[in-house]
């Protein structure tokens, strides 16, 4: 499309401003995390990393990290299994209730998470289940499975069903087709869905709030501290959590890149 140079430049600046707007609060948190004084005020006079040292030594912190990590890992694995089949039902197969299924999956996304968490709390209570971090896994799944399904479905829309039919014509059974054809073709979607699942669970607060029982995830603990007053550990842990997520993304990108490079090298050899 032809837009004038001026429009282009203005929109480009607007985009940059938007990114700055999104990340400005994290800059403040970053500065706060390296401020030495217990009571924060800008401009920061003395910088120190002592809060990081304290956070790393604290046993509360390692417990929080362990809980958050367990929830996120379990959510990722289960959500991916659901999402793989869900996406096929969503996009690939033509079946009778496909439309209803598509709409049903969307409902939890269009739902206030705090209310969903409370509804689950009552549901677990009436079933006689005492909430722990495991019930939080269920809570996260309801919200994250639909998102993962949509991400895999985008990939499933773009693949050619003729590939599956060809395999079937050559005598492959349903299971073999799924494993040898469908799974590898959907892989890029599954990888990004897994990344989304992990990170969204890692950062989720409203669903965890009511469903973790006596356990606590990192975002929950941070919220409790924020509402009850300032603690210098809040920005420190916040930044540690953010850096952790970003490292995971970098790692995932690096793995995908290496795999692709490896594949290209092999095809070049053949």
């Amino acid at each position, binding site marked *: 499309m032809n837009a004038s140079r001026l429009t282009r430049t203005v929109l480009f600046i*607007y985009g940059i401003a938007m990114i700055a707007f999104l990340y400005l609060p994290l800059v403040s948190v970053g500065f706060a995390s390296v401020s030495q004084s217990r009571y*924060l005020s800008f401009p920061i006079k003395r910088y120190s990393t002592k809060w990081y040292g304290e956070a790393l030594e604290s046993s509360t912190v390692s417990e929080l990290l362990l809980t958050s990590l367990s929830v996120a890992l379990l959510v990722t694995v289960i959500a991916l299994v659901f999402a793989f089949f869900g996406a096929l*039902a969503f996009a690939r197969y033509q079946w009778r209730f496909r439309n209803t299924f598509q709409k049903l999956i969307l*409902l939890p996304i269009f739902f206030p998470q705090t209310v969903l968490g*409370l509804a689950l709390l009552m549901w677990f209570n009436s079933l006689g289940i005492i909430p722990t971090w495991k019930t939080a896994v269920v*809570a996260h799944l309801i919200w994250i499975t639909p998102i993962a399904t949509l991400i895999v479905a985008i990939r499933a829309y773009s693949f050619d069903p003729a590939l599956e039919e060809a395999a079937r014509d050559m005598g492959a059974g349903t299971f073999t087709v799924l494993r040898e054809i469908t799974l590898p073709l959907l892989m890029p979607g599954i990888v990004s869905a897994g990344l989304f699942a992990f*990170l*969204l669970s890692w950062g989720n607060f409203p669903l965890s709030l009511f469903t973790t029982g006596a356990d606590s995830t990192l975002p929950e603990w941070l919220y409790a501290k924020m509402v009850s007053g300032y603690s210098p550990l809040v920005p420190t842990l916040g930044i540690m959590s*953010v850096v952790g997520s970003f490292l995971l993304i970098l790692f995932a990108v690096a793995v995908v890149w290496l795999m692709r490079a490896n594949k290209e090298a092999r095809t070049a050899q053949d």
Partner: protein
Amino acid sequence: MKTLDRRLGLLSALPVTLLMVLAFLAPLVVVAIFSIMPPKVFSLANTPDFSAYAVFFKQGYYKSLLWSLGMALASTVILLVVCWPLAYAMAKIFKRFTLVLTIAIVMSLFVSENIRLFGWVLTLMKGGLIEGHFRALTGIGFDSPLYGVPIIVFGLVYVYLPFMLFPLAQGISMVPDDTRQAAYDLGATRWQVLWQIEIPLAAPGIVVGSLLSFVLAAGALAESKILGGQAVIAIADDIETAFTFGQNWPLGSALSMILIVIIGTLALFGVSKVDLDAIMGRKR
């Protein structure tokens, strides 16, 4: 082929459907039943008396609901205006910068909204990033904009921006360039093209984006608590208090039900209007 497709479709939909029925629809039924129980009971084995709904009107809870809906509406309208130019540029003008923007915005989503809102407190508070540096430079301080209704709306706009931006960009990318060009060639003005070509053709994206941001903002809790102090109470806040501090599950359930009915009606209406196959790029 068709019968196989049908069978496989049903089979592969089964796990997700079970999850939705057992862990999403069933809890909602429990909320509905709890909401008609007498006050302060913790089991469903009581005679229903609907008293919790009367409390909603008598004790002024409807004010929280109106505030929440009003602030959600305001933030949705602001988001539409703020996101439209950027979504347009992402769909039609930028090339590689669209990818950069997408990655930057998606990455911000992975940071817990608590931390980001807390970051705004540190940025905007008296002695915060902005006021502190401004005072150090000029010697003049100013009041912090925190703890009021406008800042809550600002927080909602900030947190739900990606939920408006991405559907909007997707909707706009569905507007064919030829149609716009044809309208211009026939002498349409910029405004006519916007109102008569672009907005109607991008409608699915507009509907999904607006619905998502409105619904999520209406049920939001953290913005009003972290940024708003106690300037106004959001309905989600009332619901939480009823459950935790008030130990009154039927009241909390009744408040939830009212919110769920409003949001559910909107969501069902919006979702039923949208063709998902078209939005998500079906090739066949």
